[in-house]
């Protein structure tokens, strides 16, 4: 009986079919009632241990997500830009650093996306990138304290490299690890995550206003010391990232499979070679070429605008309403909440109006944001303008995704997505410094006017051109 039970256990563990186990054991002379009893016992045990393993994994992912979102909120990009400005950085340097950050991010995302397909990237590496991301906040806070612009710029760039590597690789790991086991909690993590990030942004803004950069003297247990809001906020961001990286080290590593032993330099070489091939694949399709040009300009406007929107709101309203940082927090909190409903609206309208008109519409909505900053700089209009701008960005994102699926063949689409990242970074090397220089020379308000006009008078006509080209193609 004992041996039979062991064999039944082995069979259940190996996930053999019930009939197969039964047949094998009956052949060995075991009673069918004993076999059924044993199988049912072990099946129950194994199911419950699997369930507990799954729920442990889900719990780990959830806590990791929770700490990630806290770190995104406390270390919000808008706050970083304001503190960089307060450290003494010029508009030009802020623009250039943000541009470099985007170039690195896009490039790294593309590189890691391809590299992780062929080479196993260890969990340890992912964890380390998370920790680097966390420590960059501490260095940024130090740079703010010592008014060291170079240290701030370096910390910001290294932090963003860490953030992208971490985010990109983690997303892959998340996708593989929880393919079948996504709980309700994790399926809705985007919504919960937004709420956590929103609350963190608001709290960070409040802390930075309550304890301004000059330091608020606080007396605790007879000790007198100065409290700096940005230091608290960035410490929380740093600790959250480090904890999140630490949680990641407890997760099982089976998910990312190695195909090839390829060095990162070799991968880079292969990707550049593929770029030429890929461009020739979709380069023949004029509609796609114009679409890429329009996307490059749109992302350029977004990058440059996002570098300065927070600074502008902070500087214009620092003595009014909720005070400097909280004003910025409230505006961007309202704006990020659009993620709850924007994709739904876009999908619905894309069906009603078509994808091309939605692209034009999204671009115009995006243009409203910088134009409001220029024409009507009061907090309520800016809040509404920012909200509309974020909806516009979501419209463009969804419409662009639907359009690439429609316009391209499978082959073209594969070529497009693998070349897209590297391709759009190339013009930024020239465009971002020019935009940052314009901000430095003509001021933020003039830059916002310029960005709005670029969207209206350059990007929108490009989309019109696409509509005409596409309708001609369809007629042919």
């Amino acid at each position: 009986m004992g041996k039979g039970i062991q064999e039944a256990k082995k069979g259940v563990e190996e996930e053999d079919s019930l009939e197969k186990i039964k047949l094998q054991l009956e052949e060995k002379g075991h009673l069918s009632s004993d076999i059924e009893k044993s199988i049912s016992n072990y099946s129950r045990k194994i199911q419950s241990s699997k369930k507990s393993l799954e729920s442990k994994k889900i719990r780990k992912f959830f806590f990791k997500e929770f700490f990630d979102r806290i770190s995104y909120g406390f270390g919000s990009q808008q706050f970083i830009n304001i503190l960089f400005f307060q450290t003494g950085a010029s508009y030009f340097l802020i623009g250039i650093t943000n541009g470099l950050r985007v170039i690195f991010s896009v490039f790294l995302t593309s590189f890691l996306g391809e590299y992780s397909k062929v080479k196993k990237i260890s969990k340890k590496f992912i964890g380390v990138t998370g920790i680097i991301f966390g420590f960059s906040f501490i260095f940024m806070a130090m740079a703010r304290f010592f008014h060291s612009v170079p240290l701030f710029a370096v910390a910001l760039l290294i932090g963003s490299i860490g953030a992208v590597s971490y985010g990109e690789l983690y997303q892959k790991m998340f996708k593989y690890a929880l393919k079948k086991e996504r709980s309700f909690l994790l399926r809705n993590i985007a919504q919960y995550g937004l709420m956590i990030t929103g609350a963190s942004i608001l709290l960070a803004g409040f802390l930075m206003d309550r304890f301004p950069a000059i330091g608020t003297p606080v007396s605790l247990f007879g000790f007198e010391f100065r409290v700096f809001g940005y230091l608290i906020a960035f410490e929380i961001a740093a600790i959250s990232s480090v904890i999140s990286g630490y949680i990641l080290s407890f997760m099982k590593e089976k998910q990312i499979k190695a195909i090839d032993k390829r060095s990162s330099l070799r991968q880079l070489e292969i990707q550049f070679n593929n770029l030429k091939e890929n461009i020739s694949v979709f380069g023949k399709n004029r509609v796609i070429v114009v679409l890429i040009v329009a996307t490059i300009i749109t992302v350029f406007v977004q990058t440059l605008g996002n570098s300065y929107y927070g600074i502008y709101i902070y500087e214009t309203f620092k003595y009014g309403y909720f005070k400097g940082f909280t004003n910025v927090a409230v505006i961007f909190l309202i704006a990020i909440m659009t993620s709850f409903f924007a994709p739904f609206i876009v999908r619905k309208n894309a069906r009603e109006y078509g994808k091309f008109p939605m692209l034009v519409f999204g671009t115009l909505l995006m243009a409203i944001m910088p134009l409001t900053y220029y024409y009507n700089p009061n907090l309520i209009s800016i809040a509404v303008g920012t909200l509309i701008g974020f909806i516009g960005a979501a419209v463009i994102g969804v419409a662009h995704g639907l359009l690439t699926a429609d316009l391209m063949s499978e082959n073209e689409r594969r070529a497009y997505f693998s070349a897209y990242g590297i391709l759009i970074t190339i013009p930024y090397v020239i465009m971002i410094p020019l935009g940052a220089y314009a901000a430095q020379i003509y001021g933020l308000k003039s830059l916002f006017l310029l960005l709005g006009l670029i969207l209206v008078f350059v990007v929108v006509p490009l989309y019109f051109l696409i509509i005409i080209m596409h309708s001609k193609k369809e007629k042919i």
Partner: protein
Amino acid sequence: MKNMLKISKNKKAVSPLIATILLIAFAVALGAVVMSWGRSVDISKEIDSTQKCSGTSLKVDTIDGVPQIFYSGEENNGFVEFTIENNGKEDILGLIVWVVGEKETMINDLDNLQIKVGYPLTKKISYSFNKYGLIKKVKFIPKISIDKTIFTCAKNSLEEESIIKSG
């Protein structure tokens, strides 16, 4: 009937070009509303004035500890003479002077003057003792300019109560 419903569900409502024009019109209208919303209340200027006023400061000049505000004359031919200094961060482009008397308060709006940062101003203004009574207090309210608009910084006023008779 089922097929008809299916067709009407799948059919796009408008052609791409017309849809684009409709959406452009909607976006332009939305933009116009947002960009003109609350324009009459120029909050940025108000905030600017609060910010700039916070950098405005006046001080009565003192010699050997004596504030340089004096009165002289009598009945309808009185005078108040003062020396004040701009020790703030903003140039002052006007001054409202209150001379609070026992009977009434005399208000003098001095528009055509400028006190640069770090500079003093000495001024003599006429005063009627018969009409306003003995002087109890003098108050100075500075005015500054933001984008060619004059703002009065009432919260940054200066008051002086020890006014002595000129020797």
